[in-house]
């Protein structure tokens, strides 16, 4: 039997998951990382991506849009918005992409010169969002129109 640790996934609106898990794959801002029991304590921010939770009985996936994760004795992911993979449909995804596109446009308007900063960040957010769609097999059509 593999070692387990306590894992909590909470969003401001509800508690999505609280269970003993063997590993969690977290989409960190600076790259994906997998936390297993006895991981060094760390705090990282999240980018939009897939959060993969491995329990002894199987694997669960969540789509998260941002937030941060705290890894210590236990792992807590505080996601701004988190949706179980199964519940993610085209409409929900479209709304998320739409939001990212709007943010990108707003950032571009605010700073027409492409300087590093808000514009790049918004663009990266959008790209991450599109990557999420490709991964889960949904079509980021809103993004295609506006690129």
């Amino acid at each position, binding site marked *: 039997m593999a070692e387990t640790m306590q894992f*909590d996934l*909470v*969003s*401001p*609106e*509800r*508690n999505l998951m609280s269970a003993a898990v063997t590993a969690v794959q977290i989409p*960190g*801002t*600076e790259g994906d990382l997998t936390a297993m029991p006895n991981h*060094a*304590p*760390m*705090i*990282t*921010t999240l980018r939009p991506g897939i959060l993969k939770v491995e329990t002894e009985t199987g694997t669960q996936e969540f789509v998260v849009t941002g937030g*941060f994760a*705290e890894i*210590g004795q236990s792992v*807590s992911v*505080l996601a*701004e*918005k988190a949706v179980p993979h199964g519940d993610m449909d085209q409409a929900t995804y479209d709304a998320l992409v739409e939001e990212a596109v709007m943010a990108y446009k707003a950032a571009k308007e605010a700073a027409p010169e492409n300087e590093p900063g808000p514009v790049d960040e918004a663009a990266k957010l959008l790209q991450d969002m599109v990557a999420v769609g490709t991964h889960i097999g949904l079509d980021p059509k809103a993004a295609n129109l506006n690129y």
Partner: protein
Amino acid sequence: MPSLKDLKNRISSVKSTRKITKAMQMVAAAKLRRAQDAAEMSRPYTERFNALLGGLAASVGGSATAPKLLSGTGKDDVHMLVVMTAERGLCGGFNSSIVKKARTQIETLKASGKTVKILTVGKKGREQLKRDYGDLFVGHVDLSDVKKIGYADAQNIAKDILVRFDNEEFDVATIFYSKFQSVISQVPTAQQVIPAQFDAPEGDAGGSTLYEYEPGEEAILADLLPRGVATQIFSALLENAASEQGARMSAMDNATRNAGEMIDKLTIEYNRSRQAVITNELIEIISGAEAL
């Protein structure tokens, strides 16, 4: 002396009022349950968030490069008061007590020569403050179309406040809302959100675990602080929603009871005058018979 007909009409009108208040009380009770559940759901997030942010703030707070949201602008000349009230009335002293709290604060600030700006959330507070402080309003957030308060609503309010902060429109921001304690007790509360304030971390929270930060400690803090504002506003909105329903429930309960008492009183009066009329008629008949 009102006639029998008048009394009858009054009784039936009070009866229908009682029906309405009774219905409102039951609706409020159902909504209260839902509001309390929502507040319950958000609690784990808020608690963890604050613990984490508190720890981070304590370690970075002292440095000169700490973000402005944490350390403040170095002045406290302009105060922003965010007054959160309900969109609807008929909820007892709920709105007035929040407004009263805000009013006291405004007067204190004004007396010490500070500039005050007011952002209202919810229609009722705006109406009550308009007369005396209408010129201090800088904005209003309308939540009357929102059926269920979501995190996105809090984020929008937070965004509005943060933009104003970035434009250096104010130095200190305080939110006013009502903390839900029980159905009969809601406590109007003022909470400072900018610069952020944290409860002193409990004994073991500080320093026992050394975290690694990715990206840097300060980058994370800069990312978290705006979210902290949104989180605080979100939990205040939820508390407020629960308080509003609680206050409405007890107000309507009182109203229903009062209506019941009034109906009893009116019924007695109605019966008395009915008897008086009967007695009168009898006397007339008897004295008529005697005169013959």
